[in-house]
Each structure stands twice: as C-alpha cells, then as structure tokens.
C-alpha cells in the first residue's frame, strides 16, 4: 500500500472526520448486535469455538503434509497448482496464465489475498482489465479506494457518497439514493461483464485436502459467477487456508457466518472440486490454484506467533475493537486493519516497518474474547510490543525485533526496575518526589495536551495510609 503520511497523521485525520465516525460506529453496532443474537448461549459458543480452534490448530501443525495432500488431490481433479513464495511471484504466475489464455478482461470475486498482493494494480499496469464484482468492492473500485473492512469493504462510505460516485461513472442511469435501485443498476452492468469475461479470479475460504475442494462463502452470487461463467478460473489463497477433512468445514462455516455477519448461514456455500468435466455444459474449462506464502511460513516457525495463521477472516475482532471503531480501516494503512491487522502486518512486513501499529490497541481484550478460533490477539499484540523494544534481531524470527527501542525510554524503565525492586531506594525516591512535587513538568508530551497534568502528591500512599491509621504492613 502507498503510505505517504505517517501513522500519526492518518490517526489525526481519522479522528477529525465526524462522518467517518458515525459511519463506523453505526456499522460496528449493527454487526456486534447481529453476532450477539446468534450466540445466545455462552456454553454452546465456547464449545463451538473450541472445535473451530482445534481444527485450525490441527491444520497448522500438519501444514506441510496437508498442503502436499491438497496439491495431489487438486492435480488429480485436473486443477493446476502453483506455489508462490512472494507477492511478486504470485502476480507473475497469474499474469502468465492469463497471457497464455489470451485473457484480457477479468472478473474478480471479493478476496483479501488478492488485495494483499495488489493484483489489480499489477494487472492494470499490463493493460489487463480487472473488475471487482462484489457490490461493495465494485463501488469502492469506482471511487478508486481500498476496502476499509475485510468483510464489509465499503463500510466507510455513506449511501450519498456511493450514489454520487455511481452517477459520475454511469450517467446513463438516473441518479438515485435508493439502495434497491443502485443494486439493480449494478446487476445490469455486471451481468454483461460476467458473460463477456475471459477469466474469473477468486479467493478461497477453506481448501479441503481430503477431497481437493475449494470452498467459497458468499451472499451475492458474484463469487459463483466468477468461478462458473468464464472459461478460466484462477483461485488465490494463503497456504494457511487448508483443512484436513471435508467434515472440518461444517463447524468452521457455522462459526464464520455467525461471527462475521450474524447469519445462520450465507446465501451460497460453493464447493468446487474440478473444472468442467466431460459432458458437462458449463463451468470453467481450466482451473488454477495459487498457494501463496508471502511471509506465512516464517510466521509458522514461531510457535507462539503461529496462532496468527488460524484466522478465518471473519472480521469480528475489528467489529469489537474500540480503536478500529474510532479510526476506521484506512488509518492503519495496511491491507488487514484492526486487531488481526496489527498482529499480522508487523510480522509480515517487519517491526521496523510497521511496529508502530501495535500501539493502536488499548489492551481491552475484546478481540480475544470474540475470535471464533480463539487466537489470543491481546497476548500476541503485547508480545510484538515487547519484541519491538526488547527483542534482539540477530536471533529473533520476527523481523525488526528491537528496532523500536528508544534510549531514553529503556533507560527510564531500567531505573524504574531499580527503584521498585529495592525498598530503600524506593523510599528515598518517593520522598524526593513528594517533597519536590512543585518542580514536576507542566505538561507531559502529547498525552497531556488534552488532559490535566497529574502532579505527584505531597504525601505518598504509604504516608496517607499511616495517617489514616492503617498498620505499617
């Protein structure tokens, strides 16, 4: 992603934007409430989370083996498998496949992983037309923006803003702010595009090793269009999305749709196991799967951080995050925002690059409580924070560990430790602070800008307690 300003600038911009606040606040309230309604019984929810978490952990502990099995199954189902270590490699592979098929117009289903590799930009540079077809993605592509939420990409835009963008691009339709009418106009535009496209590109929610099946979860039907209508289908997925058995998808699907949008199930659950077979009359004639690493196998090597890869991209952690709700998705400046974003992105791109993201967390713990696969997000964020200042890059797996250490700050904490671990030094320190309280600074950095600056009291807590008649011990 192109970041021109600093994270602080983007935070300030977001905090100044009232419209953005109200868009996010109401959207997050809506999503939280819908999820809550689907999980009335805490015990049942805990049970389902245990199951989902154990399926994902199991996938990760046998990841190499499962990927080999998946590859074997897919190939025997006539689906060509490609491995890409980096985003560039994935883009090049996709470009080559399209070029070989002479494909010039592409329809795409909603896929965060293709956002991650910036596939659209890559293909557009090579004069290939790539059209987003999920309604939200389609609208923000028109506005030349990026998704601000991993499930609801256009959540930051109001209906008015959407109507305006739509009318600018399609003046042949009468201007409207009616959601049904906009939806029907988009249907009309996109149906021709599906029919004429040379290839369809999609992501994957789960890839089943046992049967070589690619599963897609959606409500609109554009995912089915992209994977059924064009003669060529390319599916892109992170290597972590594999599960062992077909029956594994049952609880995962259940908890995914309930957590993400509070739906019992989505309109479509699409399970694809091969291209068009002999005698069949529709479906793509050829299919390819790109297994993308892009930093995942490195994360996999660290046993604690590996849990990051259990994520099924439900978006629940951001829906419940007070910081995300205030900032919106764009302020993070990364593809994945919110709690999962600040956990995943610094690991992928290095702490030197993105360590500051971990400060966008109040440690309230909400994300960890709602995550359907029990990723201990607060713990992982905390770990990244401490790696950023204490880690030693030479023997750490997390790139850029220790890079955020500040001399003054670490000196301050060293002194704190010295003072608080020695009773004599501590009593000397508190005496000095309370007696000399009048020379304490008037404001303390940015924090003090909006707050009354605290002053050390004249008496220490211990002295006050003694005065109040409490025993010494």
């Amino acid at each position, binding site marked *: 992603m192109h970041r021109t300003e600093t994270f602080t600038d983007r935070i300030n911009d977001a905090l100044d934007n009232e419209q953005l606040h109200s868009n996010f606040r*109401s959207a997050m309230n809506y999503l939280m409430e819908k999820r809550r309604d689907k999980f009335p019984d805490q015990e049942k929810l805990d049970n389902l989370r*245990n199951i989902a978490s*154990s399926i994902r952990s199991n996938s990760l*502990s046998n*990841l*190499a083996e499962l*990927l*080999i099995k998946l590859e074997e199954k897919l190939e025997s189902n006539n689906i060509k498998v490609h*491995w890409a*270590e980096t985003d560039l490699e994935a883009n090049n592979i996709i470009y080559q496949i399209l070029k070989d098929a002479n494909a010039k117009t592409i329809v795409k289903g909603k896929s965060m992983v293709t956002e991650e590799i910036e596939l659209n930009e890559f293909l557009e540079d090579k004069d290939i037309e790539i059209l987003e077809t999920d*309604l*939200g993605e389609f609208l923000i592509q028109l506005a030349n923006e990026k998704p601000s939420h991993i499930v*609801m990409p*256009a959540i930051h835009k*109001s*209906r008015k803003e*959407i109507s305006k963008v739509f009318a600018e691009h399609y003046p042949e339709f009468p201007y409207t702010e009616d*959601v*049904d009418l*906009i*939806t*029907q106009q988009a*249907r009309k535009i996109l149906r*021709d595009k599906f*029919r004429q496209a040379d290839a369809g590109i999609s992501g994957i929610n789960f890839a089943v090793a046992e*049967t070589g*099946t690619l599963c897609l979860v959606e*409500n609109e*039907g*554009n995912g*089915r*269009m992209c994977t059924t*209508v064009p*003669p060529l289908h390319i599916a892109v997925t992170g*290597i972590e999305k594999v599960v062992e*058995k*077909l*029956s594994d998808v*049952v609880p995962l699907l*259940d908890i995914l749709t309930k957590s993400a949008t509070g739906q019992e*199930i989505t*309109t*479509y*659950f*699409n399970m*694809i*196991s091969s291209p*068009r077979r002999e*005698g*069949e*009359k*529709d*479906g793509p004639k050829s299919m390819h799967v790109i*297994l993308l*690493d892009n930093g995942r*196998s*490195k994360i*996999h*090597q660290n046993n604690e951080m*590996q849990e990051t890869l259990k994520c099924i991209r439900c978006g629940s952690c951001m829906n419940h995050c007070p910081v995300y709700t205030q900032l919106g998705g764009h302020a993070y400046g990364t593809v994945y925002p919110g709690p999962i974003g600040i956990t995943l992105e610094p690991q992928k791109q290095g702490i030197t690059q993105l360590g500051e993201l971990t400060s966008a967390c109040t440690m309230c713990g909400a994300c960890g409580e709602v995550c359907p696969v029990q990723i201990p997000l607060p713990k992982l964020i905390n770990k990244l924070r401490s790696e950023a200042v204490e880690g030693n890059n030479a023997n750490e797996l997390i790139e850029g560990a220790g890079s955020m250490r500040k001399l003054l700050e670490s000196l301050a904490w060293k002194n704190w430790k010295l003072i608080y671990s020695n009773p004599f030094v501590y009593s000397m320190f508190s005496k000095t602070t309370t007696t000399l309280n009048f020379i304490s600074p008037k404001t303390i950095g940015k924090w003090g800008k909006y707050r009354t600056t605290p002053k050390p009291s004249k008496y220490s807590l211990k002295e006050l307690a003694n005065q109040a008649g409490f025993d010494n011990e």
Partner: protein
Amino acid sequence: MNKSREIILERLKNNTNETSHTKVDITKKTYDWSKEEIISKLSENLQSAKAETYLLSDAELIDWLNEELPKRDINNILMGSSIAKQISKDINNEIEVLKYDDPYESWSEKLFNETDASITTTIGAIAQSGSIVLHPTPEEPRLMSLVPDIHIALVYEDTIYETFEQIITNQYWVKNMPTNALLISGPSKTADIEQVLAYGVHGPKELIVLILTS
C-alpha cells in the same frame, strides 16, 4: 523443479513443534426431529432468508406451476430433461419450456437475457440452516440455479437432513465429490450499502422451494 514449493515446504517442516493440540471431540449432533419438525424448521429458516416455500404432493406440482407461473410473469422456464418429460405435456402451453441441451457458450446471451425462471431438483436440504443442496449434473448444469431471475427448487421430503454434517456423511460425499456442490439458503442478497439488505444483486431475485411429499 519448483523452487518456491521446496522453500515453503522446507520452512514449514522446519518447525519441530511437537505440542499436540488437544483434539476436541466433534460429536455428531442429532436433534431427533420428527418429519413434521424437520419440514417446518426448513421452511421457517428458508422463509426468514426471504425464500418462499410450499408443501405439495407430487400430483399437485403441475397445478401449482400452471397457477403460479403466469402470476409471476414467467413466460419461459428452463428445466432438465427428466422434469421436462414429467410435466411438459401438462404445462400451460403459454409457457415455453427451455432445455439446457447445449454447452453454455452456444446460448449464453439467451440464458442471461431471455430466461425468466428455472426449475431444478436438489439432492436434499438441511433443516438446521435452511439450505437446499445441489449437485449440478450435465442434465441440470450449474448456472441453472444462478442466472435466471427466479429459481424454483424441488426438495423431496425424505431427503431433508437435520444438519450439514449428516448429509455429507449419509450421502458419502467424500468418495464422490461432484464438480460443484452447493448450499443455497435464499435469494441472492447484499448489505454492502449502509447495511441495508437488498435482494437479487447477482443471482436469482427469488428462490421458491417446493417441498414434495410422496
């Protein structure tokens, strides 16, 4: 041969994490619903996702079609040969019966722009989630349940299962996965604009499920 493949797999195998995860017992859930309960759960759930459901006997099907199709301005309807054989002689002759006899490419424009409705069979349904289940075939290809504005699906009452798990197991899916298996739980919809629900964004605008009793 493939360098990236080797590098990725090597790195993944490198992790010698032996901690075995506590395997949670995924006990097969059964509700022991009666036939009536199963049918009513399926109908309720489908209706709450804005699908229509009707309970008919086999013999009533043709009357239902003759009465309902004209009401909904359906002038033509796409169907597979088995259904066509069963009903085409009795169907109102103002309604044109279309068949998916040729590969999609040879008639894509007509399918997309001039086909009002389709009628397909299903391999069953799931009461708990309110889903109909399709394994499209050469006779009833994949796009039949996606492209026409109205999709009518036939579900035989004895193929309704309580859960997704049950249908996978009882029908031995693992051994014979079709090209495409589908769970469909309502008409196409979106909430992408200000979380306002709108139907018929890309797929069918209406889903009508006819539950057939024997």
